[in-house]
């Protein structure tokens, strides 16, 4: 299993600013992901964080808006850039140990409000 710590747990930010969310896993993991959960909705995958290379973004998400780093097997960051109120959401970090048949573990999420 893996325990994932995310910080900050919540923040209120001014529009036009950027916020970096950190994700720390207590063990080395194969894959790390970032999701967005908008109010009352399901989770949408933003990107897969690749260690030592550029993240793989899903349709509708771009690196300029959501730059991601993954310097090692236990840590990743997601930045929400040039924020607008539409970016208000919960952002979740996820990690998998092993390949496709294993479950994903999730952090508690970062609740972001943009004013």
């Amino acid at each position, binding site marked *: 299993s893996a325990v994932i710590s995310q910080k900050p747990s919540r923040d209120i930010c001014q529009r036009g600013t950027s916020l970096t969310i950190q994700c720390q896993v207590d063990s080395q993991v194969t894959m790390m992901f970032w999701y967005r959960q908008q109010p009352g909705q399901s*989770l949408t995958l933003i990107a897969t964080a690749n260690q030592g290379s550029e993240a793989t973004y899903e349709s509708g998400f771009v690196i300029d808006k959501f730059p991601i780093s993954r310097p090692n097997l236990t840590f990743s960051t997601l930045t929400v850039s040039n924020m607008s109120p539409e970016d208000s959401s919960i952002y979740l970090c996820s990690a998998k140990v092993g390949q496709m*048949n294993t479950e994903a573990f999730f952090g508690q999420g970062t609740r972001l409000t943009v004013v």
Partner: protein
Amino acid sequence: AQSVTQLDSHVSVSEGTPVLLRCNYSSSYSPSLFWYVQHPNKGLQLLLKYTSAATLVKGINGFEAEFKKSETSFHLTKPSAHMSDAAEYFCVVSDLAGGYQKVTFGTGTKLQVIP
């Protein structure tokens, strides 16, 4: 293409009665299927998973799900609902789409348990 359909956005049951949360999936590959639960203001917790072994999968807290390939379904059941089961439940499919791992969440089912 990969997709997940949770047929009910809300389900309401009386305490002590059976629970049925429905999930249908579409996948071009042999998928892995999961059910996660999200309590209010809490992180996502894995309830159970199917990974091509036994088609009837038992999970935590008395939940179980049956993988039916002919019906492309993975419905979640529990014989007797408890007040603590009130939460949102997500059905998730994972497979190798286009050569890389893809994970898709259903839209979620909110379970209400009436005393």
